């Protein structure tokens, strides 16, 4: 959840996660915006494990999603933008 005390936010923007609008603010990256929306996981491994944020510094590639059509994008390293389209990764889409 976003910290309110002593915090200013950027301009509100809307990103779309599997078609659902999610509120975010300029300057945020995608992963925190997804966490703030109550999501804990936004990827399912080929063997069925849910995954979300892990290392937070762009190393582990656990938090990837398809962003504006580009697959395997690290959501922790990608700044949000108005109208950004996020598709969560599922094994059926990429491995079968």
């Amino acid at each position, binding site marked *: 959840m976003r*910290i309110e005390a002593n915090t200013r936010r950027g301009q509100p923007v809307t990103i779309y996660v599997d078609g659902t609008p999610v509120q975010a603010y300029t300057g945020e990256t995608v992963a925190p915006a997804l*966490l*703030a929306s109550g999501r804990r996981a936004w990827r399912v491994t080929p063997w069925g494990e849910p995954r979300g944020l892990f290392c*937070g510094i762009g190393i582990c590639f656990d938090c990837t999603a398809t962003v504006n059509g580009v697959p395997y994008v690290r959501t922790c390293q990608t700044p949000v933008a108005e109208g950004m389209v996020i598709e969560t990764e599922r094994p059926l889409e990429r491995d079968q």
Partner: protein
Amino acid sequence: MNPEPVHTDIAVVGAGPAGLSAAVAAAVAGASVTVIDAYSQPGGQYFRQPNPAVDPDPQEPRPRAGRELRHKAEAAGVRFLNRTVVWGAFEDLRLAAYREDTAQAIELQADAIILAPGTYERVAAFPGWTLPGVITTGAAQTLLKEQRLLPGQRIILAGTGPLQLVTAAALVKAGAQVVAVLEGASPGEAILRQPGQTLAAVWGQSTRLKEGWQSWRTLKKAGVPYHRGWGIIAAEGKDSLQAVRIARLDRQWRPIPGTERRLEADTLCLNYGFTPATELAQLFGVQLHWRPAQGGFVPRRDEQMQTNVPGLFIVGDGAGVGGAELAMVEGQIAGLAAARQVLGDSTLTRRIEALQPALRREQRFQQFYARLFTPGPGLDELAAGDTPICRCEGVSKATIVQTIHAGADTMHAVKAVTRCGMGNCQGRVCGPLVAAILAQETGQSPERVGQFRARTPIFPVPLTAFTVLTTEGAESAESRN
């Protein structure tokens, strides 16, 4: 396409405390300096800056210090390539890089290179460690400092070292409910056993002591339990973390039977120390040696931080974990030494020598610190047979153990047979875990087991990143060794 490599006197890879200090020292001495860094703002993890869209002028001491260092660099003419990952190293001190925000392929040729790549957090594999909600302490720090976000509602920190203490206090101050902090080591015992060494090591470390003390008081005031000699043994939950099982640890970090407890939490932050990032050093053919107190395999260096590869310097935690203060001293020394080499300016020698007392002081502290916070072997025994060790490829501990018993007795063989370490993280997360299993199952020393060998490209980049490479001399420096 960009057929001509960009030339710079000195290329610095990494813009944390070590890289920024090196860049400032070299640029002030008169060299042209280019800093390449993977993140959108210079500073690394230690000087991490808040979101610039809302807080361009941070007042907190650490981001402020980082910002001042960056301003010094800019004033001295340092050029920054942000959001740029270095994926290859080639002969004649050439670097191949890819800028992610502009999708630009870059080739850089330098007369000297200073690597300041930093570290990866060491984690532990235990049942449930891949559940969403189990994150690294570094991730919690990033959310807190850069994004102003709490990672969860009920938070537990487990691992070892003062980063856990400092992070827990920062979470409490930001309004989080911290359920407990579990410190695997019992640092008080070591301090009481060796009071003389303790005093020698902490001499001149008043800032560090003050930060630790303030964090401690914040936790006490909030009533957050700080358990020394306790650790995680398992995480539970269906789609995300719901509870952790903890136990008291013996001196070998093995859970003591009968002490087990269960705590409800939705977030678990792990940090068991740091592993130096040696991929670029490996590609350049730098000799590494085993120094467990500094995080594992680290480059051999002379007193000016230069490696066996002429013109190649390595500084900071990526050359041996020692903290930001040591990193900044090393960075200054390497920056001056590289500038002296490139510019032929022998007047810089005096300034390099003047930094030696500060270097010794920080090295003393590093040695002391390492003794207090080193995980015991029990940590590597927590995984069950079906616990994934390789998060990317989903390789379980049982698969790795079976493969080892079938004859795969090297890191390379385990990787080739199981695909462990072949995923997108390229073994950065599972490498130390696999090495520990291999050492345990074969009785080999960790030094003999070694680590996953870095291969070009050392980071996943799109194919367009390769378009920059000139064919002449494009042979990797490593492949010649």
